């Protein structure tokens, strides 16, 4: 799950990066409108947190240009301008949610999770697949009610597969959505993590579809 943060305030940017990384997301950050716009246009993000008052290029314009270029990722606007006229302008430009500064980090994280679920078509905060259950609020995975210990990379991989369960996910897609922009993208690492996950959950749940990628499905399902 990749998140882009576009916020010009260095401190706030750093806080957001650390809070979102702690929550198990792969986080990229940009400090001005142009850089943010470039990243959002070239990289596949699952959620973008966008400040409106940005140097070089205003946040609303960045958002409008993304939408014009048919970039559909969920965007949460983060701004000090909390009048309804500003909110309406932001939503009309194509935003999916709106958080006013100052905000509580827990609330922002809840909004990010809501956007993730919404994008993958899940209405509730926990996602189930057979005996597996992911609580997006606490970032915990249980197997038959028993918590499983996962490293952060394992968690990201499993959470992504769970969000997109019963669907074939390619290696490239996994790499793009699980790692930060400057991560060394060697698709072999994906295989390593898949191997580790198969040891922690029923191994037949993650199937390798030759030449296409992986699919997470309920155990015993041969489809």
């Amino acid at each position, binding site marked *: 799950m990749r998140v882009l943060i576009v916020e010009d305030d260095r401190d706030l940017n750093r806080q957001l990066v650390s809070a979102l990384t702690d929550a198990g997301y792969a986080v990229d950050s940009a400090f001005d409108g142009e850089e943010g716009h470039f990243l959002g246009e070239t990289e596949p993000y699952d959620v973008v947190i966008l400040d409106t008052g940005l140097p070089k290029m205003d946040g609303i314009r960045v958002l409008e240009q993304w939408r014009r270029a048919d970039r559909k990722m969920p965007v949460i606007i983060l701004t000090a301008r909390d009048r*309804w*006229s500003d909110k*309406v302008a932001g939503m009309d430009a194509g935003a999916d949610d709106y958080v006013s500064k100052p905000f509580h980090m827990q609330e922002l994280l809840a909004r990010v999770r809501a956007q993730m679920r919404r994008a993958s078509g899940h209405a509730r905060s926990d996602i189930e697949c057979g005996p597996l259950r992911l609580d997006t609020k606490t970032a915990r995975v249980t197997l038959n009610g028993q918590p499983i210990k996962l490293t952060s990379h394992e968690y990201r991989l499993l959470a992504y597969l769970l969000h997109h369960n019963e669907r074939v996910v390619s290696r490239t897609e996994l790499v793009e959505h699980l790692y930060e922009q400057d991560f060394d993208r060697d698709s072999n690492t994906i295989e390593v993590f898949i191997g580790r996950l198969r040891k922690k959950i029923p191994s037949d749940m993650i199937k390798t579809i030759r030449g296409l990628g992986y699919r997470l499905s309920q155990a015993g399902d041969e489809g």
Partner: protein
Amino acid sequence: MKANSLALRLFVTAAAWVLVVLPIAGWIIYTNHRIQVEETFNDQIDRFLPTVIDIAEEKGARGPVPPSDQVKSFRRASAHSAWDLVWQFKPLDGKPLDGKPAEIMRARPLGDKTLPLPREHGVEPQEDETYWADLPDADGQLMRVRETIHQFGMGADAQRYSVAVAGRLDDLKATVAAFRSQLIYSLALAGVGLLAATLFQVRFGLFPLTRMERALADIRSGKATRLEGDLPSEIKPLQHEINALLKSNQEIVERARTHVGNLAHALKTPLAVLINEARRDPSPLAQKVAEQADTMTSQVNLYLDRARMAARIGVIGRVTEVGPVAESLVRALDRIYRDKELAYSLDCPDAVRFLGERQDLEEMLGNLLDNASKWARSRVHVVAAAKSADQGNGAGPGWLEIRVEDDGPGLTPEQLAEPITRGRRLDETKPGSGLGHSIVSDLAYSYNGRFELARADGGGLSARLTLPLAI
């Protein structure tokens, strides 16, 4: 016309002038005319006397001829006059005429009356041996009489006569009185005409001011933003000044709003950083910082709202259509609360317009709709309707009522009874600053409107706003 008005001033001065000048002019004309008429009257009596004598001498060689022969001639002579003058010959020496005793001869209108003679009343003769006097006749009518002694005939037949002519003073007075009443009548008519003309002139002349007054009222009521219309050159500069003032007023407000917005941005980001940093750290110092930063946040919000409201006071006449505002808010909220799949229904007729700033309506309606969306189970309903003035609290053209209803859990009667105060949150379990309702309430009161919470028909919350209506 109002007690203290230009129209009244103009009218009163013009009317006073007319009321003073016309009687004076009338009196002067009347006096001159009376003197002139009297002179003519005297002049005609004066000239009638020699004429009468001439005619008598011409007809009779020795003495006055009998009246039957002379009446026509006398009448012709007196017909030149505007008045019926009378004459009289009275023999003084007692000699017979044509063998008969000489008699008094007189004009027929006199009948058997004789003219009162000035000489017999002891009046002194004038230089030309004539006597003048105003004397009452036998009936008591005052006559102006001119008398002279003239000798007719020669030798033994010669006889002196008292020849007198006269005019009735009442005739003179009647002529003068007729003129006077005509004069008064005409002058009164002229006066009334002048007053009417003045009234028209004042109304017509001041009409542009009336028009300007109406245009200003339109600006106040929000129907116009500028003073429009082709006004006369005298008040055109005023029009330009007013328009410039309106424009600069709007600019000042815009600038104030911009500054307020900038301040908000400038303060809120550091506050966000402080709060987030402090909340990650369990030390007492960090907790104190977090607590104080929260207080600062609510203070900043409080004073930003006040500044926004203060920036708005004195802004004249903005009109906002309720429908489009509600639609754009619903569009935004429908996205924010997409997961709840709420059914929004809007009932805002086009004609329903709010007399106030768009931003303020957005703020009030936005907070109410946000709250309703937060709590609603399946539907949110917005109704806007115009109410007649008497149902509101009196002032202004009328009131606009907006109701936002949801089908959520609503509030308990105790909660509904509590006053809406700043910072009070009716439920702590849903996220939000807790300022929503108090901002709505403050804004509504700043427009002399009202904000009330009640129980909706379906059991949810019904929030009702009463605001000034624009027509």
